[in-house]
Each structure stands twice: as C-alpha cells, then as structure tokens.
C-alpha cells in the first residue's frame, strides 16, 4: 500500500511540474487535474471517503471553470521572465527549498510513525461519538458537533469569498447604470424581451 502511495505522490509532483512549466495552458489545466484526481485516490487508499467525495466534485468543478476561462481568453502562456529577475527567482526557490528540508527534517523525527497516531483526543471521539451525538457517521459528528466552531468559520469564509467575487466582478455599478441611456443597459431580462 505504501508503494502505491509513493507512486501516486510522484505522479502528482510530475503533474504539478508540467502544470507550471507547460506552454499550452489547456494541457497545463489537464495536468492540474491529474494532481487533483490522484489526490482522490490517495484519500481513498487512506480510508477517508468523506474527503474523497468532496475532493472529486470540487476538482471537477474547478476544472470546468478553468477550462471555460481558457476557452474565453487564450491558450498561450505569455508570461516571460529574463536575465537578473530569473536568476533571483531561482535563488529564492533554492533558498526556500533548503529551509523547508531543514525544518521538515527536524519535525519528522518528532512525529509518531506513519499510520500509528497517538489518539489522545481522537480516542475519546471514537468511543463516545455515537452516544453523545447520535450520528453514526463519526466525521459528521466531529465536524458538526464536537468541532462545530470550525465548520461555522469555514462556511462564513466561503460566504464572504462569494460576496467578494460577486461585488468585484459585477458588470455595471448600480449608480452608473441609472445615469446611462437605455440601450447600454444589458440585462438578461431585456435580452429575452428583444427575442
């Protein structure tokens, strides 16, 4: 099982590198999809079906939105970095990689062995979850009862993010729309009337 996990992780790293370096943006998005769907398999192997369901639908939706954006705009990757800027970027990347390897080496020696968690808190959740909440799916019992605050925060963050997207990407502000002449008011209901 560990071998399959390592192979999947290597596949994900390759997909991420291709997504970053590819010149064709459509193939970059498809290799981004490789990363996401390999993550679904990793979740399934690690016996987390809740996460796997969420990941597979979120990944599909994100790919649809990205591909729709690509079809609207362009397929070519036009960003270029040259000369001193490029060297600076590579130096920063190498420095960050060194720091990351140093700290992860110090951290990993402290952690318990892979697949054998300590279960100090989770042991109580596992044994008392059904009697305290009445939910037979322990994940639901934890995220909506024991850890309800976290879920409340998550949902509020999603709400705020969507509000931001709608406000930033609106077509015409309400105040400008009143000043404009009738023909420039492009709304959906108007278009149907024209037809």
């Amino acid at each position, binding site marked *: 099982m560990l071998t399959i996990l390592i192979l999947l992780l290597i596949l994900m790293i390759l997909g991420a590198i291709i997504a970053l370096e590819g010149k064709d943006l459509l193939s970059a998005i498809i290799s981004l999809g490789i990363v996401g769907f390999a993550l679904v398999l990793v979740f399934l192997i690690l016996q987390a*079906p*809740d996460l*796997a*369901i*969420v990941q597979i*639908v*979120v990944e*599909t*939706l994100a790919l*649809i*939105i990205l591909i*729709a*954006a690509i079809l*609207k*705009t362009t397929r070519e990757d036009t960003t270029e970095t040259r000369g001193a800027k490029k060297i600076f970027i590579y130096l920063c990347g190498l420095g960050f990689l060194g720091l990351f390897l140093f700290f992860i080496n110090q951290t990993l020696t402290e952690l318990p062995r892979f697949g054998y968690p300590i279960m100090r808190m989770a042991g109580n959740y596992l044994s008392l979850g*059904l009697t305290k*909440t*009445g*939910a*037979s*799916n322990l*994940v*639901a*019992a934890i*995220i*909506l*009862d024991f850890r*309800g*605050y976290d*879920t*409340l925060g998550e*949902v*509020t963050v*999603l*709400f705020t*993010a*969507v509000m931001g*997207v*709608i406000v930033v*990407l609106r*077509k015409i502000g309400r105040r400008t729309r009143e000043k404009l002449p009738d023909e420039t008011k492009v*709304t*959906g*209901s108007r*278009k*149907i009337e024209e037809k």
Partner: protein
Amino acid sequence: MRGMTLIVKTITRLIVGLIFLYGIYIVFHGHLTPGGGFAGGIIIAGAFILLVLAEGSEELSTEVKKWRASLFESLGIFIFWFLAMLGVFAGTFFFLNLLPKGKPLELLSAGIILPCNIGIGIEVGAALFAIFITLAVLKGKGDKE
C-alpha cells in the same frame, strides 16, 4: 456562452434530475454515510452548472439567476447560524445539540446535525453556482453578438 448540440441537450435533460436527487441524498444522509453538506451542496451546484453549460446562457437571464443564488446562499448561512444560536436562545451555551437524538442509523436522528447539513448544503450549492455564473458566463472580449 452558446449552448451545445442536440445530443448533449437531450442527455442533460435525462440525467440532470438524477444528479440533483443524488446531491439531496448525500446531504440528507450526511450523518449516516460518507458525505454531508459540503459534498452534497457541490453536487447540487454541479447539476445547475451542467444545465447552464448544455443549454447555453443566452436563453437564461443570468442577472436574475445570480440574484437568486445570492439569496439562497444567505438563507443557508442564516439557517446554520440560527441553529448554532439555538442553545443561546434556550438559555444554555452556543452550539449545544438541543434536539432529540433519536435512534442511531435512522434518518431522523442526531439532533441538529441533519438541519445543519441541510443549511450547509444550500449555502455551498448556491455559493458555487453564483461563482460559476459570475466567472464563466461573463462576456469575454472575443465573442460579439
């Protein structure tokens, strides 16, 4: 955004109801089987997005759709906050599981977890659909009618 061919439209009309129903199933059985508000809400949003992609957004009035999605999003988060405040209204503490627990493995069990899941499902589905309409149905510079 223009619609797709007749084949895609027909197949979409056949399966979109099933996808919607599956999303509702995932939301309502969140406390019994894997899934829950987040996953089910995204599947419900996926059914709407499939409909928009297949039929094309010219026939639909997107401004009204965006307004409705925004309304349902607010409704969902209001349900969740209200259920969380229920304990405070009853005189105890925040996020207390007040409703009766019921028998395990039955649909109506686990107190406030089922209504919380429904609230989250409405919120997430409406939120993702609103994002999709705002981002993907915007007129690009390329397509002029």
